[in-house]
């Protein structure tokens, strides 16, 4: 992870590695039925979208990636990120549709693929987006995130 000072927003300086998972949204079936359309009001499980931990002050207060050592930049609804699987190299560009994941609740967690590992949950993709770079049944994978 490249950083000059602890306060620099890391995704302005280059790609950042972390864990990627998936979440459902858009009043879908099952436990997702109460999730709604997300913080941006546009989230849909079938769309190529993602949740980002720093979409607003209120969002940041919930997710707190800084507690895990990740000072992610403020990015608002609709901003594009590219998520690249560290396992196989497949990538997908998605837009921000929600606030999340709650990075601080999983601080220090690490996922590996081959000899490559990445720590901390930095992004959640919709099922449509996640299934383009990994199978939904993997649940959690290491990835690299850059601006799309």
């Amino acid at each position, binding site marked *: 992870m490249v950083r000059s000072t602890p306060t620099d927003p890391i995704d302005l300086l280059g790609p950042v590695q972390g864990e990627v998972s998936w979440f459902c949204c858009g009043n879908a079936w099952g436990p997702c039925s109460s999730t709604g359309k997300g913080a941006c009001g546009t989230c849909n499980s079938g769309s190529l979208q993602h949740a980002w931990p720093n979409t607003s002050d209120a969002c940041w*207060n*919930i997710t707190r990636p800084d507690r895990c050592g990740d000072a992610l930049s403020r990015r608002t609804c609709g901003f594009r990120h590219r998520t690249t699987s560290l396992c*196989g190299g497949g990538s997908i560009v998605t837009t921000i549709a929600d606030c999340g994941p709650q990075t601080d609740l999983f601080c220090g967690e690490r996922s590996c*693929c*081959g000899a490559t590992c990445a720590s901390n949950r930095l992004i959640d993709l919709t099922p449509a987006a996640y299934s383009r770079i990994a199978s939904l*049944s993997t649940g959690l994978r290491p990835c690299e995130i850059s601006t799309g």
Partner: protein
Amino acid sequence: MQGIAALQPYVIAAFLLWAALMKLLSRRMRSQAGRTALARLFGPARAVPLLRLVAVAELAVAGVLLAPPSSPWDGTAAAVLSTGFLAYLAYSARAVPDSSCGCLGAHGRPVEWRSFARAGLLLALSVLAVTAGPYPIEPLAVVIAAAEVLALLALSPELDRHWLTPSRQLLVRLTRPLAVREPELIPLETSLRLLYRSPAYCTAAAHLSSDIQDFWDEDGLRYASYAARGRTAVFSIPLYGGAPADVRVALVEEPALRVM
């Protein structure tokens, strides 16, 4: 009865003081004010000022209850405030059922039956406090007051992490309800997690176009097959104590897929 009533103002005042101080002093409470029903009903920007306003009302009623001489108006003020709490809970449970009440400290869970029971108990104690006067305090009254305090604490979901969670943790440690019953079974997920960590899977992942299609065990290995853009990828995964580097993969040419 009058001896019991004599202690009610103190029980109610202690509870209101605590609730007010949490609202005024807790940074976590302020940071999570946006999740409360107040924020959803009146807008996120008004949540913190409204919480402070409620805290001031709680402090005022607590002051009235504690300041001598006692009068029936003390209990009446507490009863009005408790009725207000009940009305707020009922409205927020109906209008914004996913929001927390913001009653006592930071707490993310929606309004539940215990919140209603707590506000109801406060109302009952307030009605009792209307009859409070400078009566001698009996031992029975002290016991009842202690039971009321315990009931208020038990009916506060905000405090679960201090007593309910540790007691459940202890019970789980003693009873081990998730202990493995059939250790000879090796779940498929165990093999798949080893597979996902393997260099072989990492290498082949970009070729895969489906999730796992089939798996079977043979000669200490678990085989798993995947579609791979018109071909089939088959992996062998050690069943017992293997390392990710022991996983092997082959990409196999098969006849074109046909509709079932």
